[in-house]
């Protein structure tokens, strides 16, 4: 029916917060060595444990869970921002080429700069490179595919293909010219998903997440009016150009850091805001924070699944989200076509 069926905001807040807490505990408890929830809570609160439990929690699983949660939340917020910017619920960082652009930026940074630097400054440089590449990609896609009537899905996705193809060829070019040492570094970075997690990576991701969380309050009302259309938002007193510039920079920053810290993880930015929107409606004052909670939970669960399903080896988490996300995206496309 066309009557709005919405979940009460308080219930959604409660459920998603609970889900995040639960996913966090599950992510720490499960792995190639299973710990009990009691042990996890004891380890987290600093009480001594028998065996290697405490070490596993503190040096392996906790930083990884923190990184997964931060990256998941960043990707979900980035997706919601992009969808608001493009006024199109099908925008996603990986589909429109932002992730690919960020990967090129990160590769450039790895090949040309990061070698001579220490671990932390190298990581920051890779993040900066990914940020630059992502920025270029969003800007390009936005310039080409947006018009006064919003953005056409077709143009947006085609631009995504074009940008991704360009990114792939640039990456290939870099592989071609890279020497042995650079190649080794590149392939190490490409393999490193969340399993490269440590407190430094988690800390950088958390810092960027914090910026995005702080930005939400100021953006949500303006984004709501932007959904009406650009000139409509301007007539409602929104400085549209400034809003768009800030959104593009934030999305590039978020996707860039997530790519630098955890590699390319697709579809989180598409699936999570979409589910939340079905639940509580498109109001960004709810959509943004709830997407952050949902994204963090989803990536924690996906990562746990990736670690457990063929333990003791693990799947890249990007594979798991893609296996979940691609059919979801196809069904979205189909339902939109049926509507028209």
């Amino acid at each position, binding site marked *: 029916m*066309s009557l*709005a069926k919405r979940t009460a905001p308080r219930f959604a807040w409660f459920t998603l917060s609970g889900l995040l807490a639960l996913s966090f505990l599950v992510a720490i408890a499960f792995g190639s060595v299973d710990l009990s929830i009691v042990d996890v809570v004891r380890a987290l609160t600093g009480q001594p444990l028998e065996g290697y439990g405490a070490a596993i929690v503190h040096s392996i699983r906790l930083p990884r869970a923190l990184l997964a949660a931060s990256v998941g939340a960043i990707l979900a917020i980035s997706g919601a921002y992009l969808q608001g910017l493009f006024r199109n619920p099908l925008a996603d960082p990986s589909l429109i080429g932002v992730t690919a652009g960020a990967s090129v930026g990160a590769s450039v940074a790895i090949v040309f700069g990061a070698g001579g630097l220490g671990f932390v400054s190298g990581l920051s440089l890779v993040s900066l490179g990914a940020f630059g590449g992502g920025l270029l990609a969003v800007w390009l896609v936005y310039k080409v595919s947006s018009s006064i009537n919003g953005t056409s899905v077709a143009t947006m996705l085609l631009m995504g293909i074009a940008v991704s193809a360009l990114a792939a060829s640039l990456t290939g070019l870099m592989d071609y010219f890279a020497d042995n040492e650079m190649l080794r570094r590149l392939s190490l970075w490409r393999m490193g998903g969340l399993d490269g997690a440590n407190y430094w990576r988690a800390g950088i991701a958390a810092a960027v997440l914090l910026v995005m969380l702080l930005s939400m309050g100021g953006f949500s009302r303006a984004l*709501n*009016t932007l959904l*009406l*259309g650009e000139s409509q938002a301007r007539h409602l007193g929104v400085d549209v150009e400034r809003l768009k510039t800030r959104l593009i920079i934030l999305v590039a920053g978020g996707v860039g850091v997530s790519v630098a810290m955890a590699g390319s993880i697709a579809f989180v930015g598409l699936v999570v805001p979409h589910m939340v929107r079905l639940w509580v409606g498109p109001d960004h004052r709810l959509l943004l924070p709830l997407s952050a909670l949902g994204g963090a939970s989803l990536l924690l669960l996906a990562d746990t699944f990736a670690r457990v399903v063929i333990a003791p080896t693990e799947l890249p988490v990007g594979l798991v989200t893609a296996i979940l996300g691609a059919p979801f995206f196809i069904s979205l496309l189909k339902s939109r076509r049926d509507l028209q």
Partner: protein
Amino acid sequence: MNKTSQNTPDKGVLTIENLSVSIGSRTLINNINLAVDAGEVLCVIGPNGAGKTTLLRTIGQDLTPDSGHISFAQQPLTRMAPRARARQLAVLTQHNPLTFAFTGREVVALGRSPHSTGVVIDDDICQAAMAALDVSHLAQRLYPSLSGGEQQRIQLARVLAQIWRAEDASTSARLLLLDEPVTSLDIGHQHQLMQAVREFARTDVAVVMTVHDITLAGAFADRIIALKNGECIAEGSPHEVLTESLISHVFDTPVSIINHPQTGKPVVLGATETGTTV
């Protein structure tokens, strides 16, 4: 009789002097002068491409004029801060693409976003605006599922809610710009919407609207201006502007004009289709 000449300074909301707009080498609007008072409904008529929408978009600051001045309550409109402007100038554009599933009520509430008047007052205003346009029953419906006419009325309720109260406007002058607000509506809702706009104008809001239906403009406008090729051909009361010779000239088609049997307002009839050329 031209109302412009009787303009008292405190009633004047919008004054346009020598306004010209062009895109590339094409002149869309040429040297337009206009003044609109509080409480007045001004209808802009003219054939397709005459510059009606361009005029409205220029007043609404979507287009930058080549020359001329637009002042709002004796201030240059361009110098007003966006937020302050939004509190006293509301615009309903011709196309309102919104595909996100807001409820009718949420769309109307977006009109209150330039204000910080608090939830209680905003709720009352949204309810009043929705009641005025007979869309209260659409409050919980999802906007994308509404018919074109229902969407249009919701959007109008949104822009009315935006400038609903005089005390929210810093200069207490309020201006409503409507671009073809009735085009997708049936005759009943056309009249109801025009009536709602008239009543809204009575709360001392100046209204400038483009209307395709000349008869509708004649029935509801205080004043009409006729545009052709970007120039103002005529300005005055409905009876002054809606004459057979003038309308035939503006629209390049013969018309007959009779007076409405009940209201006495001019009714414009196309004369070609009957075969009797004037």
